[in-house]
């Protein structure tokens, strides 16, 4: 089993390496090189040449990639071309903000989604199940910026309970921070809840007709016990996968929510960097996003192996 886990981890690292190459060469395909972007229209050929040499742009791309990768392994992403600040110092506070928001949303949404999913599976076809079904279908079909605006209009403009701007600050206390991120986190919960909930319900129901479940019923166990004790462990793998996917989304896919609530997260940073052709910053953000996704998916695989006895022994 340890071998299996090690294999998954190695595979994750390999994926990350492939992504880093894609990112590096992909961003280098953007029209215009960095030197001409820096110098602008009035660039003289000598100045262009000097900048190319100082940035190492006269070296072949594969060599520059290796140098860049080497620095990245040492935790050095270089400096931003637009602001001249070190990229790590730019990205870290933003990443912290994003993780905080994602964390708050995850702490609420994951137990809620799995719990509601289990409940609807237990009460399949009942009033509760149908209600949850309709509500989750509704939230899943509405785009997130719309959810965000509705939430703002209700809770901030009409009721005046919570701020519509999620400007977060390093000097804030936890309570203040929670108040500030309440609305964006709520929006994110609504957006990711339905997906996880429906997946939980579907995976449980898919194993409900299996012989061992019937056996459990024949033993005279109640439906809730059967679902929790016998169906859940076997249905866990797809649930964990979908939870990981949504957690990844909470970190990587929240740009729209960040814009609506003016939240200083890493998504907004990347959008700004792309528009200013600040390639080192784009690459750093891209790598952070990729690492999040790959990391969460690897973790999901590992956890799925751990909770499912059958997967522990590969056939």
């Amino acid at each position, binding site marked *: 089993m340890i071998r299996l886990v090690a294999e998954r981890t190695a595979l994750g690292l390999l994926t990350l390496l492939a992504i880093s190459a894609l990112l590096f060469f992909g961003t280098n395909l953007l029209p215009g090189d960095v030197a001409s972007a820096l*110098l602008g229209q009035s660039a003289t050929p000598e100045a262009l040449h000097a900048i190319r040499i100082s940035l190492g742009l006269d070296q072949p791309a594969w060599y520059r990639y290796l140098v860049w990768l080497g620095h990245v392994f040492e935790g050095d992403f270089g400096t*931003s071309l637009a602001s001249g600040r070190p990229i790590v110092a730019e990205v870290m506070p933003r990443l912290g903000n994003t993780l905080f928001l994602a964390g708050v949303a995850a702490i609420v949404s994951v137990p809620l989604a799995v719990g509601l999913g289990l409940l609807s599976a237990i009460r399949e076809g009942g009033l509760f199940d149908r209600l949850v079904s309709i509500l989750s279908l509704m939230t899943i079909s509405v785009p997130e910026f719309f959810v965000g605006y509705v939430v703002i209009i209700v809770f901030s*403009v009409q009721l005046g309970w919570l701020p519509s701007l999620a*400007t977060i600050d390093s000097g804030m206390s936890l309570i203040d921070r929670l108040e500030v991120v309440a609305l964006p986190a709520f929006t994110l919960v609504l957006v990711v809840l339905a997906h996880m909930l429906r997946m939980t319900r579907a995976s449980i129901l898919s194993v409900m007709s299996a012989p061992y479940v019937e056996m459990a019923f024949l033993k005279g166990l109640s439906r809730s016990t059967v679902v929790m004790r016998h169906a859940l462990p076997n249905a866990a793998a797809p649930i964990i996968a979908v939870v990981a996917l949504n957690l990844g989304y909470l970190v990587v896919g929240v740009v729209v929510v960040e814009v609506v609530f003016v939240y200083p997260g890493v998504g907004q940073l990347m959008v*700004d960097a792309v528009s*200013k*052709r600040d390639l080192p910053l784009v690459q750093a953000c891209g790598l952070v996003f990729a690492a999040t996704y790959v990391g969460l998916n690897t973790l999901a695989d590992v956890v799925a192996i751990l909770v499912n006895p059958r997967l522990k022994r590969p056939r």
Partner: protein
Amino acid sequence: MDERILKEGPRGLDRREFLTGTALLGALAGAGAGLSLASPAFAQSATPTTGGTLRLGMSGGATTDTLDPRTFTDWVPVNIAYQIMNGLVEIDADNKATPELLESWEPKPGAKDWVFNVRKGVEFHNGKSLDADDIIYSINLHRGDTKSAAKAVLEDIVDIKKLDTHQIQITLTDGNADLPYILSDYHLFAVPNGFTDWANPIGTGGYKLEKFEPGVRSITKKTGSYWKPNAGYVDSIEVIVINDITARINALLSNQVDIINRLDGRTVDLLKRNKKFQVIRSQAGQHGVLLMNCESDPYKNNDIRLALKYAIDREKIIKTVLNGYGTIGNDQPIPRTNPYYNADLPQHGYDPDKAKFHLKKAGQENLKVTLQVSEAAFTGATDTAVLFQAAAKDAGINLDVKREPSDGYWDNVWMKAPFCASYWGGRPTADQMLSIAYKSDAKWNDTNWHRPAFDKLLIEARAELDQAKRKELYGECQKMIWEDGGALIPMFIDYIEAGTTKVQGWKPHPMFDFMGQRIGEKVWMPS
């Protein structure tokens, strides 16, 4: 909404530098330069009070912003800079160049040499008192070997000489009666001689930087000893970057900010219904333009250009696209609020028959052209093109609208496509507007229009100190562009901003929105 910031490209200089600003000059400003839409029930209180925090929700900031004036490409850093530092010359509400750190000036005959007196008794935040060396250093940051976006604006300056501890002389290549206006450029801020620490700018402004998170927010606090009389009322100013227009309006509605900038015509009327808010509208030189390349087919032929100018329904576009927040354009870039505006030119209006006449003259009765547009050009550019398409059909013109992505529009389409949409923010003076986009050798001659006679006239007007004569010369310049130029200018677009009625002393400004970005030191908020 904010594709405009994306305009940076390999040119390095953001085009916005050269476009923003408006072109009202002088006396007429009072007549039409701006009208406050604030309800009379909330008349501004006459006596300013001190205290409170002013919170600005602004579009126009990015995480890549810095406080180095050479890099300013959008409004948020400019606004913050004016809280901390002072400019050299200020443009007042009547669009006149008034003293700021340069206290007075005198041109020598011919307007080639100018003497400027530096204000005495002004101290920087670090205690150093302002003198001529500081001013010379601050101007030179944007001259010669520099990445400054204001470099092109100052190109005509040959030499800056120190005459005295508080007096300098500036020498130009050719005479220019507008030099004080040029020195009002929003990149020119005074810092101490030799200053380089742009993370913590030291200025002579009424506020000190407390916190600056690029693209997020800034906080400044009152220094308590500001040299400017009747300015710097609030205790602190907070700028919050909100680039999304809906988020900006929500922030105002939920009382998280006191004022917001850059509203569009379609949302203003909703706000105006609410008595808690005031709307400030500044009529300005900002205009939308459809550019025809005068050297490429079929736009080479002036009859084709005229046919297109008669085939567009300007009134309808202003009503639909701008919701009325704009003025009709007459295919020349000087707004009617400018004292040099040529009012004698007949208005180009929608006239399919005239358009057909010109098409026939050009032998192109079934003209088919493609107009390339993007929202990057100006908000509503696509709608403008579609309305144009419908109107042009009646003149027998088959206008094909091609939508281009906003990202890269200024690099890939502008000044490359033969017929495309664009905008100009106008310039503080007629000379600047005409020099930057219509002079034969202008870098941004985006209609590829070359008329030596026009250039001669323009240079003559520039050095002319007699106002009547000057007006005549500029009038002739406008006429030439009007009858023969490649710019189809359907409308001038107003700046609209909004805020709570608590903010007092807030007025329209003929240059930029937010009172020329100096709103921080000008308004007060009675508690």
